[in-house]
């Protein structure tokens, strides 16, 4: 089964037709195509562009605002759209599928023109720096010199940090939500179990599975596991508790042995099953690894203050107090570095019981913070 992209307004930018895009490790790669969507109108001064970066498994479809034919929900509809915090009536919103992804931008499931087959594991181990460099090329291609803001959550927030480091002049402000400049070993551990589930799936076949059965079981298990890290013990308890999947009398169990007995089990299986319909296992391996490898300080070779020292505009960091994937302490380290540098930095640790997923859910405080912050952004 191949992934179909249902979005009406998706556009493609051919970054390069040749093998001439220099990756962080020095090797050359190409061709590269970037799938992106834009919402709203770029003004004459070209100073109302907002670049939004998706998390691990997101895509360019950040909002359903301008889907004319069929409305497909956007992954950040709560925050982005007409009259929303990031108002597409005011701002020109750009969102692209990440380099290495599987929703239209070049990734391991793309065809390698040298072989005529999907790259699979011959795709290079790209980095967040490479992904951000591709995003910057798209912004250049759209004729925008300075963005109003670059915003993202989770892997998207890590990418914003890389923008602050690689392209500090390219935006008047930066918004980093539920993110860190490096992944903790606990989170690497969770993603490693997920990757192992994919690699151990007999259908994985060394990454060369596109013409046969896909490693759906492995990818399902990887998603089930990762999904737990996006929730909090409180939210999972509140939503599912020890409820059974079917009505059961006390002292009875509805299933023999290992069928989905509890509601939480069934929920995770459903989430995993739904995920394999829209995501490529190789992209999942590459993107999780990219996230785990990332350390903006290059494994402490550079002080964090040096990484962030060239930022000129305002920055905003937001964490959620129940998030254990990227914790408030992860945000604080960056905020502290910005304070030390005397930069204009704002930090809010929002009270939410929903864990890492909180940034995608309805949250009035998050919405007013983001909207007020962007309104007050000046040209650098």
């Amino acid at each position: 089964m191949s992934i179909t992209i249902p979005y009406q307004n998706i556009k493609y930018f051919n970054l390069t037709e040749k093998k001439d895009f220099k990756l962080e490790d020095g090797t050359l790669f190409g061709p590269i195509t970037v799938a992106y969507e834009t919402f709203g109108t770029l003004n004459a001064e070209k100073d109302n562009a907002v670049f939004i970066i998706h998390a691990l498994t997101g895509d360019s479809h950040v909002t359903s605002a301008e889907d004319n034919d069929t409305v497909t929900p956007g992954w950040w509809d709560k925050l982005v759209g007409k009259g929303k915090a990031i108002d597409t009536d005011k701002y020109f919103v750009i969102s692209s599928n990440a380099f290495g992804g599987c929703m239209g931008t070049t990734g391991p499931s793309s065809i390698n023109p040298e072989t005529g087959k999907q790259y699979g594991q011959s795709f290079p181990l790209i980095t967040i720096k490479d992904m951000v460099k591709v995003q910057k090329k798209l912004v250049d291609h759209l004729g925008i010199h300075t963005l109003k803001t670059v915003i993202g959550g989770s892997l998207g927030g890590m990418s914003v940090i890389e923008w602050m480091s690689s392209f500090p002049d390219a935006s008047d402000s930066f918004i980093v939500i539920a993110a860190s400049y490096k992944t903790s070993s606990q989170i690497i551990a969770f993603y490693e179990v997920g990757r192992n589930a994919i690699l151990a799936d007999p259908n994985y076949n060394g990454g060369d599975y596109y013409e046969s059965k896909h490693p759906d079981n492995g990818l399902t298990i990887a998603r089930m596991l990762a999904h737990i890290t996006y929730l909090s013990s409180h939210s999972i308890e509140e939503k599912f508790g020890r409820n059974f999947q079917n009505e059961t009398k006390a002292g009875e169990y509805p299933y023999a042995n290992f069928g989905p007995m509890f509601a939480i089990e069934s929920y995770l299986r459903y989430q995993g099953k739904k995920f394999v319909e829209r995501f490529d296992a190789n992209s999942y391996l590459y993107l999780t690894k990219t996230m785990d490898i990332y350390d903006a300080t290059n494994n402490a070779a550079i002080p964090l203050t040096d990484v962030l020292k060239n930022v000129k505009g305002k920055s905003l960091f937001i964490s959620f107090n129940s998030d254990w994937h990227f914790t408030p302490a992860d945000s604080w380290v960056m905020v502290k570095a910005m304070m030390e540098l005397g930069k204009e930095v704002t930090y809010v640790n929002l009270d939410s019981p929903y864990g890492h997923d909180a940034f995608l859910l309805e949250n009035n405080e998050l919405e007013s913070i983001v909207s007020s912050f962007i309104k007050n952004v000046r040209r650098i």
Partner: protein
Amino acid sequence: MKLPKEEINNIILNEIKEDSKVLDLGCGDGTLLKFLIDNKNVVGHGIDFNTEEIIKCIEKGISVIHWNLDNLPLDFPDSSYDMVILTQTLQQVYHPEKLILEILRVGKEAILSFPNFGSKSIRWQFLMKGKMPITSDLPNKWYNTPNIKLLTIKDFIDFCNENDIDIITQAYFKSDKGQHTKIKFLPNIMADIAVFKIRKNK
């Protein structure tokens, strides 16, 4: 130059150098910090723990950091600010002693203001009514007050002497219907609010 009605804000403004780095602890809705940014072009960070107040700061375009002043030590580097300001908040924290010492580590100088619990109106209410005093600067009842560590001007001066803290300037104010007027005579009895500029004696 635009000046606010509040005499106390003017006193603070006069003590702030142009383009300096200022940290306003317990900045509330950011009114004072905005005033300092507009008039002295300071690089200012506000600190508050209340999300509603933080949002009001962001609406004003102020850089504000979410931090609880009872969470000590302050995780900010040594001497990273020219001036640290703590207005009408000292009496609301759990560890005022530790907080003042932290303020003088983080800032080269500090301005502190607090309601004087030695003022005559407070003394009068306590003596004659035998009840917890209520004033315009301390308007709450005993059971819902955020003001938990009340002090007098004399107490503060003693504290500075005991902790090698230099008092650089001081100003005393009488409150009347939300307006403050400067006074000099018998401050520990006459003043409702005290403002001190201090630094650590090296």
